[in-house]
């Protein structure tokens, strides 16, 4: 009970704080717009295939997630509030609050990227099997948020913050990236929902394994 209300209060604090400082939001927004614009100019005259498009879609999501979500713990560390949080909340409260907050951020971001893609690539980026696409976006966001949260926690304690984040996240996220790209291609090609079931299994497994592992690891990372 107290675990739940504490987690909820911490998420509210993070959302409130984000709305006031725009720490992550500005970084996310700038990145999405710049990346999509660049891709648009590069592809202007070509007619990209669905696998190229789904690859480019997740590249944008991947790097945006990296630039925005990496700030989760660094921002507490930089402001010296890490210890304040350690004093008032248990590690699991902090972990689940940050995970949920990052999930909300990632999910909003994928929706924004989707809308942008559908507008600028209106004749190529057509979602033919909506159920596959929706499932991929939801499970993919969960996976991204889960992996980013634990990586962000590790990176916040390291001295070489800037470079460490992409270096650490690439091997951890490669499985996830390949799977979501694969599933998105199927959604763009209009394949049957059942054809994406193996991908969904991987995504669910990935999320559960990543979250379970992170939960166990988090206490040691968080408390030095």
């Amino acid at each position, binding site marked *: 009970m*107290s*675990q739940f*209300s*504490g987690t909820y*209060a*911490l998420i*509210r*604090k993070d959302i*409130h*704080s984000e709305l*006031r*400082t725009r720490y992550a939001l500005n970084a996310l927004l700038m990145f999405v717009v710049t990346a999509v614009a660049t891709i648009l100019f590069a592809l202007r005259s070509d007619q990209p295939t669905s696998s190229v498009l789904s690859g480019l879609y997740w590249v944008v999501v991947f790097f945006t997630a990296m630039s925005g979500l990496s700030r989760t713990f660094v921002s507490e560390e930089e*402001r*010296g*509030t890490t*210890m*304040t*949080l*350690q*004093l*008032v*909340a*248990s590690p699991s*409260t902090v972990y689940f609050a940050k995970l949920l907050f990052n999930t909300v951020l990632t999910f909003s971001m994928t929706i924004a990227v989707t809308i942008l893609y559908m507008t600028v690539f209106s004749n190529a980026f057509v979602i033919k099997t909506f159920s596959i696409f929706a499932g991929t976006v939801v499970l993919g966001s969960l996976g991204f948020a889960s992996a980013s949260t634990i990586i962000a926690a590790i990176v916040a304690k390291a001295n070489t913050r800037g470079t460490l984040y992409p270096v650490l996240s690439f091997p951890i996220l490669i499985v996830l990236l390949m799977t979501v790209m694969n599933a998105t291609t199927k959604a763009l090609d209009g394949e049957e929902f059942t054809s994406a079931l193996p991908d969904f299994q991987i995504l669910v497994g990935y999320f559960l394994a990543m979250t379970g592992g992170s939960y166990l690891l988090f206490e040691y990372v968080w*408390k*030095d």
Partner: protein
Amino acid sequence: MTATGVTKEFNRRTIFRDVSISLSQGESLAITGRNGSGKSTLVKVVAGLLSATRGKVEYAVDGKPLEIENLRYHIGLVSPYLQLYDEFSGSENLELLSKIRSDVGIDSGRIQQVLETVGLWERRSDYVRTYSSGMKQRLKYAFAVLHRPSLLILDEPTSNLDHDGIAMVKKVVDEQKKQGVLIVATNDADEAGWCSANIELGKH
């Protein structure tokens, strides 16, 4: 609260060795020692923010041993390492931190009471970003005593405080000595004199 044979090492460098403390209701302890002797480190170990390399720290409330997960309801800390949120106002900070801790029975009346004690009630709605360093220190006191902790730890208690502020700290200290346990980490002989016992670190 008892600490037995607590030793802390950072990368194999021993900061202090075999420190033992035992404090019960109404007792107070000053931790003194030169800069870098490990006062703040010992404070963090006692507050459960750092783990000891060897030895252990145990707590009991009303004779019952206290689980480490419940320690946060019974501990208050003022420390230069502990910051509050810049983008929230003074009263918002107290409110949200109390909610994150899931305190019971902390209402707006209690928040008003502690803000008045530290002299920040007039400025409660201003962002902490706009506070002076002394005001931030005062707000840390409000945060530390908000939930009436049984163990109050003050690290560098009067840094940045004016005359009024020091008087406020003395009031908080006297109050705490009546109803709980007090630990003060300081270099100042006056401040050390507030406490009934003293240990000096760094004399090995």
